[in-house]
């Protein structure tokens, strides 16, 4: 009984954490490229472009990663024209869709609200873990 419950919860956590991890690590550069284009020579002089971003990820500088997403979520990121809230919403929607599809693959009953809540806690957990690791 408890083993079954643990297995179900572990599957659910994986279904939420894998897309959340992917969208956290790749979401910012994807949004950056969608706004500023593919060529690095055409990018504006900004403090956090994709090479800097991957450098932050490689050096486990979680604080700037988490700060970038928090600034996007509240719409004050200077790299995006609208502060980044639209891009953050698109990233969250893609994470929701991916976690929903993964959860629907492993369990017969599919619950869209649960997938959205799972995506939310997974993103919050990853960002808080990153900011704890960076401080």
């Amino acid at each position: 009984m408890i083993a079954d419950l643990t297995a179900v919860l572990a599957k659910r956590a994986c279904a939420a954490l894998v897309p959340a991890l992917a969208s956290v690590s790749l979401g910012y550069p994807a949004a950056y490229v969608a706004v500023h284009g593919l060529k690095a020579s055409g990018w504006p002089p900004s403090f956090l472009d994709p090479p800097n971003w991957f450098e932050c990820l490689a050096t486990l500088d979680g604080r700037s990663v988490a700060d970038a997403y928090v600034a996007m979520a509240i719409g004050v990121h200077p790299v995006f024209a609208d502060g980044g809230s639209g891009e953050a919403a698109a990233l969250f929607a893609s994470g929701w869709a991916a976690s929903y599809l993964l959860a629907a693959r492993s369990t017969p009953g599919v619950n869209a609200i649960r997938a959205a809540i799972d995506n939310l806690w997974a993103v919050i957990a990853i960002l808080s873990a990153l900011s704890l690791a960076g401080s």
Partner: protein
Amino acid sequence: MSVGTKIVEARRALEAVVRREQFLSVSAYTRYLLGRQPDMVDGLDDPRLLEPERVKLKSVVRILLEEPPRGRLEARARHVLSEIANLAGRLATLDLRWMARALLGALAFAGLALALTRTAQPCRVTSPLVVTWRLPDGALETQSFAPGDTVFCTVDPHRLRRWIPGFGYAWGSL
């Protein structure tokens, strides 16, 4: 006085007593109905109540205890909550896999299309140039460039852009 008359009088007296008791019972029942609820519960032990009135009072008390009186606001709140629960249940059981796939595909397609159309590179100005910029808020602004200056042109070489930090792109045409 004959025996028959005595019997008739006794029966009348008895009927009068019974009618009086019935009258008392019905009036007590009516008073309990018009009174407050705790009094109504106490009234079940009232010796003035006869059996029919006691049964009626008991059924009234049972109904009142089963269904407490609700205000209109509470009824509306209950209705709204049940509607929300109904909607959430429908959404929970709905199969949204195709919607999720469509959303993922549309987001990926839109991101790729945006990235391709917004790709830009620096270009050198060879002859004097006047550019009319359309700012993100729709305002127009002209700017002149001398040979040797650098502008950013997109895939379409006649379309220029300039980044205004915290504001967005100004798009210009030659």
